[in-house]
């Protein structure tokens, strides 16, 4: 099965034959099965690598080991019932997933969300972005061998998860957003604790920089590895920090501002290196920008009072029609396409998962590199298999 899959791409076969002709010695490429159980494939990703020594000739990606049929399930759930399921898409940034879903339903129904809820949402989404990027940095560094960064990142992530637990009652699968607002208002003491986090975080982030930012080993492992130009990246469906690492100024929060992002002061993080290191820098910068957004939101929330839920009918029955709403999730563009037939259940719900799209470019990125680089590349594009397989 796997041999056939690879051979189907005519160009690869041609490449291999050419190599065989060139070498007088009859050599054959080795097939290496990386995953679904492998320390650095971030879950259940499976790569079939065709190797020449340690150099990669071709890659095939096999996914679907975590397929739960979310889209089919959605057709059998009412709109509010599907919300907890979205937590389980990208389970390390569940607020962002909720955000995309509720925005789509609100767009479909034409609900206006109260100001206060808007800012709470933005703040939570940005905290999620920081925590997601922290996990990414932790695992990416661990993959390349710097294991201490992992623990330092998790230390800060715990602070964010504490905040989540305080506001939502759960640390990971938060289910905090509701169609028309958020489930509860912020609890007492939240703002102070969040402020403390914003104060501490930039200082603590210095630790990761000390360990790897200028480290020569880190540089030699990431600079000029897996280069992909902005144009090619767009062609291959890259979004989010990955495409911003290739010099494309594209952030949905800026370009199609939703939920008051346009009223806050922040910058798009863009790097022009196009390589693993550039993507690393983009995310580092994004974490700091998110921190800025969070503290701005806190300033506003302190003064702004009001309801956190819009007036929403008890049974949510959107009008007939279809909408697509997208948010800038930590991994890239997360979109929900909902087709409604006027009943309380979506007729069709499609999730545009950023990790799924980001994976498409992996074979292009790793061609010609070494086995060790595959790990660096997978780490750098930040996949979460819950989202890829849905």
């Amino acid at each position, binding site marked *: *099965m796997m041999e056939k*899959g690879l051979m*189907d*791409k005519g160009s690869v076969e041609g490449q291999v034959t050419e190599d065989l002709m060139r070498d007088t010695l009859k050599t054959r490429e080795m097939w290496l099965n990386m995953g679904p159980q492998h320390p650095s494939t971030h879950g259940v990703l499976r790569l079939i690598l065709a190797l020449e020594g340690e150099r990669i000739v071709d890659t095939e990606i096999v*996914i*679907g080991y975590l*397929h739960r*049929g979310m*889209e*089919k*399930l959605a*057709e*059998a759930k009412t709109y509010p019932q599907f919300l907890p399921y979205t937590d389980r898409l990208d389970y390390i940034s569940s607020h962002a997933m909720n955000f995309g879903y509720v925005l789509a339903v609100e*767009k*479909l129904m*034409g*609900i*206006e969300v109260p100001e206060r809820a808007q800012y709470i949402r933005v703040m939570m989404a940005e905290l999620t972005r920081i925590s997601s990027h922290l996990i990414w940095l932790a695992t990416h560094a661990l993959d390349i061998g710097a294991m201490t960064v992992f623990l330092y990142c998790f230390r800060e992530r715990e602070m964010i998860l504490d905040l989540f637990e305080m506001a939502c009652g759960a640390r990971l699968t938060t289910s905090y957003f509701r169609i028309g607002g958020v489930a509860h208002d912020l609890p007492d003491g939240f703002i102070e604790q969040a402020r403390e986090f914003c104060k501490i975080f930039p200082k603590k982030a210095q630790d990761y920089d000390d360990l790897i930012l200028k480290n020569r080993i880190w540089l030699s492992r990431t600079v000029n590895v897996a280069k992909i130009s902005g*144009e090619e990246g*767009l*062609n*291959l*469906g890259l979004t989010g920090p990955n495409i911003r690492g290739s010099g*494309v100024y*594209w952030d949905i929060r800026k*370009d*199609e501002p939703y939920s008051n992002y346009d009223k806050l002061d922040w910058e798009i993080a863009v790097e022009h290196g196009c390589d693993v290191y550039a993507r690393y820098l983009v995310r580092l910068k994004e974490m700091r920008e998110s921190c800025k957004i969070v503290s701005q939101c806190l300033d506003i929330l302190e003064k702004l009072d009001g309801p956190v839920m819009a*007036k*929403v*009918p*008890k*049974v949510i*029955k959107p009008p007939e*029609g*279809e*909408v*697509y709403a*997208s948010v800038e999730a930590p991994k890239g*563009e997360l*979109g929900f*396409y909902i*087709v409604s*037939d006027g*009943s*309380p*259940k979506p*007729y*069709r719900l*499609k999730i*545009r998962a950023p990790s*799924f*799209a980001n*994976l*498409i470019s992996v074979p292009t990125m790793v061609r010609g590199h070494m086995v060790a680089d595959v790990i660096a590349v997978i780490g750098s594009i930040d996949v979460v298999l819950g989202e890829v*397989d*849905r």
Partner: protein
Amino acid sequence: MAGEKEKKVSKGEVKEERKPKAPAAEEAAKKKAAAPKDEAPQEPQVDVDTLPLVKRVKEVKGEFIEDVKYFRGEITFLVKKEGIVDLCHFLKDDSETQFDFLTEVIGTHYPEREKPFEVVYHLYSTSKKHRVRLKVQLAEDEEVESVFPVWRSATWYEREVYDMLGIRFANHPDLKRILLPDDWEGHPLRKDYPLQGPPGYREAWIKAHCASTNKL
């Protein structure tokens, strides 16, 4: 709406809504009174033909466009099946549209329609910052041309549509299942596919994997 779906809805909902029905209706009425303020600017009677994007497309590739819709600020083109790749090439390269990014490809199944399948393309332009939706309707055994020559990312999206709905794409370089195992039977996102898998599948799975627990 399909009879089956209708039945399911009524079975599930009528019973449930016995109590909240009145408040829900009230709410809806209240909302209707309050809503026009929010909804009205979103849903005015926009003449779609005046939108610059629609104008441009109709002007150059009008022969492929069957219909244009406008809902919640989103433009949808219903495209003739033959013209999709041509239109995509145009939308990508034209200086007024510049849709350089294929967001996703979606398949939808409407069993009661004459052409039951619908392939939906979402396009985005990173320079113009606008979006558009293209739709192609297909009959049961029809194929649509792959847009893989325009955007390479379409390979995976189209594989997913094939996997989930069984819609075939002509000239696709590697059309096979992507999320489900290669030997899977059926296409789960079709409306006639049962929610808990093929009959007997769940029981067989429990027997094979959960032998130790008698209740699941």
